[in-house]
């Protein structure tokens, strides 16, 4: 079971990396301020001890004062030098890193602008193709033979798919240049589940997959309806992709404490434990042979994570499925099924956690 905490990733990392470098043997300024005087003090104490016991015959108070003043002064000077050295090294390292960071950010901006331009450029021809295909399908240009209609229907579906991919690409590239802004809408979760089921049913029927929803009656939440729809439908779409024919998919929505829990469980091929963190990365697919078989841009789950993050929620992936989940799904435990569950927690009210 892999946990995908949302607080531990993101921009914070960059700053951590900055402060880690530029230290003396891994010690920070604050360590040095007490460690260096301590070492020097121990050294002088020893010296003092040796000198007094082996080399001098008479011990005087004034000698002790001389020793301790000498020790303190040396300790102070050495500390000042050590701190100065570390701060200077840190400063240089920081400047280097900042420069690298600026360069990387510029590169990232270029990439995002490129993505956004390309998506726009792809849209215009697609609009024309899609327009004509749908125009012909509407039979306003004349009757179609059975085959012609079938060909056009397939072209139309593929146009929609291409369009969806372009939208995903554009969505993720805009997200990087500015943060996602969520609307505060009252969402009826039962209706949401029905909408998702209606959208996904044709695909499920095509593969002979049993798609069920279980929603606690009367549940509502405050969040951006389009984004939550996108989140859950991406997960169901993902489940449809990786579930074999005659498999099962279950969408459950429930309230757990102050959170709404959305779960998408499938009897599919599962995700190996070492890949569970990575599935949320952009363009990632478990392996390239799988991606060739199942298709997709590899952006769906990355978009899911962004939406969950923007809502201050949490998403985790569980695979293989525990016994209880298999039972809920309606699969016998003696069947050889791995399965995957995406478990999302979102605050009931977006505003309450955003404050």
């Amino acid at each position, binding site marked *: 079971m892999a946990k995908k905490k949302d607080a531990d990733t993101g921009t914070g990392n960059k700053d951590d990396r900055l402060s880690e470098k530029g230290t003396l043997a891994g010690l920070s300024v604050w360590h040095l301020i007490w460690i260096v005087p301590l070492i020097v003090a121990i050294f002088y104490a020893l010296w003092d001890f040796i000198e007094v016991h082996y080399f001098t015959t008479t011990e005087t108070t004034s000698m002790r004062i001389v020793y301790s003043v000498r020790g303190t002064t040396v300790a102070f000077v050495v500390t000042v030098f050590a701190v100065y050295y570390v701060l200077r090294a840190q400063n240089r390292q920081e400047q280097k890193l900042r420069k690298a960071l600026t360069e990387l950010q510029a590169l990232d901006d270029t990439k995002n602008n490129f993505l956004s331009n390309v998506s*726009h450029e792809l*849209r*215009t*021809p*697609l*609009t*024309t193709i*899609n*327009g*004509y295909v*749908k*125009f012909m399908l*509407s039979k*306003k*240009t004349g009757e179609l033979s059975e085959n012609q209609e079938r060909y056009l229907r397939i072209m139309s579906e593929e*146009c929609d798919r291409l*369009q969806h991919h372009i939208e995903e690409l*554009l969505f993720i590239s*805009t997200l990087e240049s500015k943060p996602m*802004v969520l609307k505060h809408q009252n969402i009826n979760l039962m209706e949401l589940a029905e909408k998702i089921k209606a959208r996904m049913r044709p695909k499920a029927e095509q593969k002979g997959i049993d798609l069920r929803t279980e929603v606690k009656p009367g549940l509502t939440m405050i969040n951006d309806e389009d984004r939550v729809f996108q989140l859950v439908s991406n997960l169901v779409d993902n489940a449809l992709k990786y579930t074999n024919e005659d498999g099962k998919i279950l969408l459950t929505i429930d309230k757990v404490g102050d959170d709404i829990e959305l779960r998408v469980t499938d009897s599919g091929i599962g995700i190996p434990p070492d890949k569970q963190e990575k599935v949320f990365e952009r363009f990632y697919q478990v392996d390239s042979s799988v991606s060739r078989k199942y298709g997709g841009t590899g952006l769906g789950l990355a978009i899911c994570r962004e939406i969950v993050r923007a809502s201050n929620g949490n998403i985790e992936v569980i695979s293989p499925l525990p016994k209880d989940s298999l039972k809920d799904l309606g699969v016998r435990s003696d069947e050889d099924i791995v399965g995957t569950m995406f478990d999302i927690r979102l605050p009931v009210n977006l505003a309450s956690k955003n404050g």
Partner: protein
Amino acid sequence: MVAKKRTILIVDDEINLVQMVTDILEAEDFKVLPAYNADECLAALKKQKVDLILLDLMMPKVDGWMLHRKIKESKDWKDIPIIILTAKTDALDKNVGIEIAKVSAYLTKPFVPQDLVNKINEILNK
């Protein structure tokens, strides 16, 4: 019923897209005038009466918003409804379009042809 054909002016620098929209709207019994840039748009407006304008935002030289302002500032054309037809999906652009520029509708590419036809009919029959 023999109503006079409604005239729609489409302004977009994409020739094939203009052709596609023209074909679809002609099938719906509209008269369609193509214009591939701002100058052609203004020339067409001077020549004849137009019932509705379909306007692309991203065009070379004079862009959609500049053209929009020119049309709205003229007393002869300021009442012609304008539908923005654009590949810009930014919510900001859309809000500017609807709330500040007061355009009649804002459609993003790719759009479903039937949606466009419905929007045009809805606006013209108001």
